[in-house]
């Protein structure tokens, strides 16, 4: 296919028929199978796929960084005419860093914590004997400047833990660029970052790529990111490249069923839920009425002192029956703390949490326990929120038993709930380990619904799931809420998702609600500067996903 669109030999990098076998007992025989694509000078190729699609294996194969139990079975990886798979380890070491640069997903773990930032950048040059002496020092400063870090002179002596996630990723980029490689491979470089930081990093990569005329292979799962930076797109499913082509083509006229499914899972800006948001229920007392909630943590500062960090300050909101309030904010904005306060998992400093008119903040744990069944939560991490040693049936049933429901009745209800969240009834006797992330999140929802709550708090319940699974879980949650008329607090970092399902949105920044309103208001006429920044940073601004009929 690549020969049709590009002249053979002209490509900077070309992967031809790459096949990597998985060890036996894997869920499929090949990690990647018969993979062919090319990367040209000065273009950004996005490789898109869900977790387990083989996109990282493909990147590591190019870098020669595959673990020992994975060896390419057939195919070639041609870099300027030489097959990288045939080269000795020494040759590859010479190429890595010098000709092929790579940025990793986790800026937290990819930097050495006991070396200063400057030393780490200089080390890249040192291993390739590049620019000895003074020049290396100068180049380090130049690189820090290039990736937009403030005060390079000072910052080069800082240790990684002093830097924020975005700054660390910038340092990683500086390291990858130190020797001006021809090819930059970026493996989900922005996934661990906040939206506003992500936008900055994407802009930086794009800008540097333009200046240095590199070929960039950018691995991501986010179609918004693809829309922002890709020249060409390759879509991978279960180790097979199912579709590739120019970005505009793939994004707006996807031909493969899998691509259509992925694109269909991208949240649309406007939706049915948002449209009817304007119709406010008048007169009804809110299920939840939070007034001037303030919560601070004391963290150790030095050996003996303690420092107070205010996580939530003077936050007030209400939620009515059958309505969804979206609390949107970046990491550290205090949004998760609010969720914990609502469930009395942490104490609060001051303020009131009125649930159906009575202040639960004042109650002791024992007083609140009988009321707990009314306020339930779906947790963020489906892998940590289910006890691995209990069967699914027991996990869902435990809450009813704790609240005095007879066992037989609880069991019956549990089977009913498993059906309701669209899980197989056979799930009852199985353990959480046998289920995928999306299925586990359904179990978490069933557990929360088992007690017929009046208020449901969902804390980032999508963040650990793949895009297509996200859409399914979200749909299920919406359907159930409409059926059961539960009031919901939906905590998320993703403005797109919030706009999609919430009737009302509160934007949080540094512990305060800086703006609230209907999704319509927040999106079209943001009043606060931070909201404007957040909206501008959302990837895929210019692209409205096409509404595809999922016939195929």
């Amino acid at each position, binding site marked *: 296919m690549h020969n049709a669109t590009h002249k053979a030999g002209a490509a900077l990098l070309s992967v031809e028929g790459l096949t990597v076998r998985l*060890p036996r007992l894997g869920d499929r025989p090949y990690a990647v199978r018969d993979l062919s694509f090319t990367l040209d000078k000065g273009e950004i190729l996005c490789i898109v796929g869900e977790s387990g699609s083989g996109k990282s294996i493909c990147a590591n194969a190019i870098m020669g960084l595959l673990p020992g139990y994975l060896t390419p079975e057939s195919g070639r990886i041609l870099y300027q005419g030489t097959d990288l798979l045939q080269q000795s380890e020494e040759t590859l070491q010479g190429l890595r860093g010098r000709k092929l640069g790579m940025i990793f997903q986790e800026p937290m773990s990819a930097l050495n914590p006991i070396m200063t930032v400057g030393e780490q950048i200089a080390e890249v040059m040192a291993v390739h004997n590049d620019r000895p002496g003074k020049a290396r020092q100068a180049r380090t400063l130049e690189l820090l400047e290039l990736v937009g870090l403030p005060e390079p002179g000072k910052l080069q002596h800082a240790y990684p833990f002093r830097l924020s996630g975005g700054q660390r990723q910038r340092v990683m980029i500086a390291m990858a660029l130190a020797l001006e490689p021809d090819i930059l491979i970026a493996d989900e470089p922005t996934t661990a970052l906040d939206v506003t930081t992500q936008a900055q990093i994407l802009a930086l990569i794009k800008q540097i790529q333009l200046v240095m005329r590199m070929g960039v292979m950018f691995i991501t799962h986010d179609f918004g990111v693809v829309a922002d930076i890709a020249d060409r797109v390759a879509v991978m499913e279960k180790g097979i490249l199912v579709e590739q082509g120019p970005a505009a083509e793939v994004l707006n006229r996807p031909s493969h069923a899998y691509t259509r499914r992925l694109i269909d899972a991208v949240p649309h800006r406007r939706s049915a839920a948002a449209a009817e948001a304007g119709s406010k229920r008048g007169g009804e007392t809110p299920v939840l009425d939070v007034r001037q909630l303030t919560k601070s943590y004391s963290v150790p500062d030095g050996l003996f002192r303690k420092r107070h960090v205010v996580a939530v300050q003077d936050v007030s909101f209400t939620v009515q029956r059958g309505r969804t309030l979206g609390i949107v904010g970046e990491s550290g904005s205090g949004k998760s703390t609010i969720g914990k306060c609502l*469930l009395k*998992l942490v104490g609060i400093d001051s303020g009131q949490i009125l649930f159906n008119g009575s202040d639960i903040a004042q109650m002791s744990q024992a007083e609140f*326990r*009988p009321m*707990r*069944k009314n*306020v*339930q*939560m779906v*947790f*963020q*991490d489906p892998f*940590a*929120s*289910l*006890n*691995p*040693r*209990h069967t699914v049936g027991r996990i869902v049933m*435990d*809450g009813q038993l*704790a*609240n005095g429901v007879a066992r037989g009745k609880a069991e019956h209800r549990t089977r009913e709930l498993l059906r309701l969240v669209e899980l197989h009834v056979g799930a009852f006797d199985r353990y959480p380990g046998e289920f995928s992330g999306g299925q586990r999140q359904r179990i*978490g929802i069933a*557990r929360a619904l*088992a*007690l017929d709550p009046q208020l449901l708090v969902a804390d980032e319940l999508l963040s650990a799931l793949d895009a297509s699974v996200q859409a399914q879980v979200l749909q299920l949650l919406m359907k159930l809420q409409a059926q059961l008329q539960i009031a919901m607090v939906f905590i998320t970092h993703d403005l797109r998702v919030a706009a999609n399902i919430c009737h009302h949105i509160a934007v949080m920044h540094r512990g305060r609600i800086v703006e609230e309103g209907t999704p319509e208001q927040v999106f079209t006429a943001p009043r606060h500067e931070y909201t404007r920044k957040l909206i501008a940073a959302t990837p895929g601004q210019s692209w409205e996903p096409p509404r595809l009929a999922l016939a195929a």
Partner: protein
Amino acid sequence: MKPFLRQFVAHRGAVVGLVLLLVVILVAAFASVWFAQSPWTMVGQPLLKPFESGEFPLGTDMLGRDIGAGLAYGARVSLLIGVTSTLVAVCLGVLIGAVAGYKGGAIDDLLMRFTEFFQTIPQFAMALVLVAIFTPSIYSIVGAITIVSWPPVARLVRSEFLSLKQREFVQAAVVIGQRPMRIVFTQILPNAMSPIIVTASLMTATAILTESSLSFLGLGDRNLMSWGYMIGAARTMLREAAWMSLMPGLAILVTVLAINLIGEGLNDALNPQLRKRGD
């Protein structure tokens, strides 16, 4: 449970240990069937070398007591004391560690200082003093070994609880309205069991050694034949009749080794991080 068994069986040392321990248990169980006479009675000529007489294949000591009988009855004492003191120590350690880890705060501080108090005194010296004060008997020995061996369990359980109680499934249990006691016993403890079982198996071996050392020093139960006592009694004749110390010494070695091998096998089979090793 199946992957656990497969992993355990794949550990060759663990299987060897299990077989050895089974042999020791069988010998202890059938001691009175094979040796009708009490191990204290003089049954033959003194100082018979092993295999010298067909009647006493392991030889006799300086008073003409059958060493084979001594070993068999001694196995009972060693296993009894090892298992009982470990069980009691684990229960005590789990209780204190669980309360400290789950409650946290001032209670945690108090319980941990209390635990450290016991840890600062050398274990064997304390056991020695306790047995000497309460006069040697099987109860005082079990008690002394328990008292010196619970602190590490308490610390282990506390640290497991500290990390487990932060996990989302424990918070979920709070949210659905389970009571603290129920959360501790049905949610947290089962997830902390693996390291506790491994520690307990190794503690049993240590307890057997401690009992032997106490008996060697003459602080064993006077009514019960024990391996440590046999070595202690034989030490004056080490040059003339080395087998008298060698036989019970080998018995201790084999038993403790077997239990340690099992402990290591359990550790590999129960520890999910290690389970991936070598795959």
